[in-house]
């Protein structure tokens, strides 16, 4: 139990450069705080995110990968988020089939103005991953 409390997850938070990142900017403008171990990674659009970019961190050291882009209909490029959703579904299906904890991947829309939601997502995801415990893959040397 105490181990789990001390466990500090390493989290990659993949953000689209419009809404997802914008949420982070709004959060910053309001000085809202979230755990330091959530590390943002910006892509132009969640629709530009190859599946490998979700899988790789999970193997190479992340305890969780969260992805936030624009709400349905808000995508700066029209449909990138719908495409991202399909890709996330695919990755989750693969992880699920292999019992590799698909719940380590989160996909949640965050709009530019949603600083609160951004921070809540980072915090909630961090708590959620803490409950799950460390990602066993990231310490496996034989991957």
């Amino acid at each position, binding site marked *: 139990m105490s181990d789990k409390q001390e466990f500090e997850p390493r989290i990659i938070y993949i953000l689209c450069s419009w809404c997802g990142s914008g949420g982070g900017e709004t959060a910053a403008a309001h000085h809202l705080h979230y755990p330091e171990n959530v590390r943002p990674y910006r892509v132009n659009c969640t629709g530009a995110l190859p*599946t*490998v970019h979700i*899988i*790789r961190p999970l*193997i*190479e*050291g992340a305890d969780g990968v*969260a992805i936030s882009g624009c709400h*349905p*209909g808000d995508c700066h490029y029209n*449909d990138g988020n*719908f*495409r991202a*959703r*399909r*890709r*996330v*579904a*695919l*990755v*989750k*299906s*693969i*992880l*699920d*089939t*292999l*019992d*590799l904890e698909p719940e380590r991947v*989160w*996909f*949640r*829309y965050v709009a530019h103005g949603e600083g*609160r*939601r951004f*921070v*809540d*997502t980072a*915090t*909630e995801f961090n708590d959620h991953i803490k409950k799950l415990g460390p990602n*066993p*893959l*990231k*310490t*496996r*040397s*034989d*991957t």
Partner: protein
Amino acid sequence: MNNKGAILPAEDGVESAVIGWLKEALSKKVFDALLIPVEVPAGDSFAYLLLRNPALLENASPLPPVMPVQGAKAISRLTMRGNGSKRVAAIVRPCEARAAIELTKLEQAHLDNLWLITVDCPGVLPLSDYLEDPVAGAARFAEASQRWDRAPMRPVCQICHHFSMPASDLHIGTLGSAEGTVFVIPGSPKGERVMENLGMPLDAALDDWAARVKEMEEVQRERRRQAHTDLKAGIAGPDGLLDVFSSCINCHNCQRVCPVCYCRQCYFESAALKLPPENYLARAGRKGALRFPPDTLLFHIGRASHMVLSCVSCGTCEDACPMSIPVAQVFSLLADRAQETFGYVAGRSLEDPLPLVAYEMDELHQVEQPYVETYHGLQIADCEQEVQDA
């Protein structure tokens, strides 16, 4: 689909009947050339031959005991740059035809001038089993396929439920046919035209065939389900999975022989993953060690994310694995689950759009993480309590 077919006499067995039929088609100029497995000169394996000379059909086999090369790969090689001018009949197994359909959607094959001809498939032997003693292998195959006994066949063939007519142009139905005959079944207008040109009226009812196929499909489906359940128990979680792939030598041969892995250079061999030494040392430092070459698991999962939606479970990967990893079985499981997510069946039809190209606005909400409103803000639970109280 037409629910009528024609009956082809096959007193001397399916193989010679089909070969004879193809010879006739060649001589009648219904086809200009055939793409068909032919025994190699040393007699110890089979290879796809594109032939126009009927004499070369002597050692051909529409149902060879092994599948050294996935036929869709041969079709792709022939037509990747466009439709040919010659009418080619490709005699392939159902899984090969399905892969050809996928490759066509991926612009790696062009089928306008190519007829996919399939035969009810009893499966094939594992390549290594066969190569150990080709003569004995051939006999074992003949005996087992006669009885539709899949036990000696490759593990994925044992659980194949798409062994009969895929979206091919013509299909040879051997199941449910009367002794000494087979059905010839057109599956497309293109196929019907061929029947017409060959003077084969569509007057045979296919009920017996369809019933037998259905019956066997159900058995196979159940087998598949059971096998997948057992398999899943074995590969579950990081421990199981890494056990299964622990002996992988990173030769990437599974990818190289995979018909739907159409990339000239695989992403997992690309510059993206070639990193400076400090990267490898840092990763090793995090884990205590880094398997080298790195990215074995990334390759398998990543490759899965690239191709499982088009995977036809043909088993070629497993045949080509020097370490006997049950890669085809694992991928058949991944493929079934992933394709189910999108309501897609690889190779079912040319019309179904590839799942990652299309999308619906209203779908897959299960992957959207619901927002627990004001997670750390106002105590929403209290408010809800309030609502309930009210």
